[in-house]
């Protein structure tokens, strides 16, 4: 496939690895790949195993499914259980356990829960079922939220009254800030999310290099992209000149996608948001603007949600902060598997636990 195969060239990968070896410092360096899509790419292409001793990759909080609080999932399940509702969601969300059930179980019990590929599909379902109310469970980072905004603008323009959004959208840079402020892990650099950055550009990360002195490289998702990003980070570390660089230049402009930013801004405003594992992070979420509040499922439907404890023994919170790795969880593989997930990190195809599970027969997976 164009723009994929070229970035998998083994000859160039070897060259980059030589470059990385030449730049490896004497002390250990921890680099965090923030985005779950990067975690999957890193494991799929065996990049962790190829890196020289001393260059460690830690997975971060960039899995939207994993950081959605249990309370939100319970709310989703409760909403799906109301009469006359069609509940639509992205496929990754359906298996996530709430405190006593999941959307998948609700579906098995006869609730109308449907998986959609796009928010536009959810809107189409609403139009095709005028006698019912269709709720879309909106999760995702800046990559996804502009598309949801677009769909809501369209619903408003077309005067559709039976379409609602349960919004759990979150913003990535504030989460990176929270991780730096917590100082639980010693991070020498961030491999920053490429697709989030297609929308927001490179500027929202600048505070990371300026205020925290931590290098940032915005990376693509093919092996050469990730290796080049690691190379660029090591170069910054060696030169002691932390900055924000874009490796993924074919898709990311410094200013991002301004049209998408405007679409997003029309519909959503920034608010505080609660993250699983990270707690409430200031200015890290999106809520609907007043003009769009009639689409807000939380306001339109009154359901009572009790606060619920995290599953016992699950380390998802620590894993999302890069403090622990899945093999350190006593439930990993034994009780918690993709078929019987205990925490969200095992459910999402991009969850760190699910990724470790899929590739855990590789001998080097315990290396950190």
């Amino acid at each position: 496939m164009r723009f994929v195969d070229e970035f998998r060239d083994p000859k160039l990968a070897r060259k980059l690895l030589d470059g990385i070896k030449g730049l490896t410092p004497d002390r250990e360096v921890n680099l965090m790949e923030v985005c779950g899509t990067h975690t999957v790419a890193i494991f799929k292409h065996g990049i962790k195993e190829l890196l020289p001793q001393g260059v460690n990759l830690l997975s971060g909080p960039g899995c939207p499914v994993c950081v959605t609080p249990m309370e939100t999932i319970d709310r989703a399940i409760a909403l799906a259980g109301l009469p006359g509702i069609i509940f639509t969601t992205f496929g990754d969300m359906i298996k996530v356990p709430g405190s006593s059930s999941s959307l998948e179980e609700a579906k098995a019990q006869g609730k109308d829960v449907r998986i959609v590929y796009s928010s536009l599909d959810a809107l189409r379902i609403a139009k095709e079922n005028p006698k019912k109310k269709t709720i879309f469970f909106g999760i995702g980072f800046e990559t996804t939220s502009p598309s949801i905004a677009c769909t809501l603008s369209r619903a408003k323009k077309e005067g559709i009254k039976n379409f609602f959004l349960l919004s759990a959208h979150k913003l990535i840079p504030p989460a990176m800030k929270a991780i730096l402020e917590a100082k639980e892990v010693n991070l020498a650099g961030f491999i920053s999310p490429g697709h989030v950055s297609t929308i927001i550009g490179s500027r929202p990360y600048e505070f990371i290099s300026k205020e925290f002195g931590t290098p940032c490289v915005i990376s693509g998702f093919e092996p050469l992209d990730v290796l080049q990003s690691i190379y660029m980070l090591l170069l910054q570390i060696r030169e002691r000149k932390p900055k924000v660089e874009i490796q993924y230049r074919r898709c990311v402009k410094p200013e991002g996608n301004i049209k998408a930013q405007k679409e997003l801004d029309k519909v959503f405003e920034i608010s505080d948001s609660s993250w699983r594992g990270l707690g409430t992070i200031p200015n890290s979420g999106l809520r609907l603007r007043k003009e769009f509040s009639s689409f807000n499922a939380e306001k339109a439907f009154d359901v009572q949600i009790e606060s619920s404890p995290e599953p016992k023994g699950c380390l998802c919170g620590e894993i999302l902060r890069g403090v622990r790795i899945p093999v350190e969880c006593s439930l990993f593989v034994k009780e918690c598997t993709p078929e019987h997930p205990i925490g969200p990190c095992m459910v999402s195809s991009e969850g760190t636990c699910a990724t470790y599970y899929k590739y855990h027969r590789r001998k080097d997976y315990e290396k950190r």
Partner: protein
Amino acid sequence: MCLGIPAKVTSIDEGMAEVDVGGVRRKISIQLLKYVRIGEYVLLHAGFAIQRIDEKEAQETLKLLEEINEVR
């Protein structure tokens, strides 16, 4: 979740485009792009094109990689 895949635009019609994703045809929204031309590649995510893929930049990145050990 943040997956984006390259898709080639084959036709455009009022905010929607037909694209070719590795041989499979799909209808996607191009509302998030200021403009796009037929024949160009876009990044497809959740039914929307979220950015155009810059051919020239892709070539330049690859060229840079060819030269990498010599530059340093």
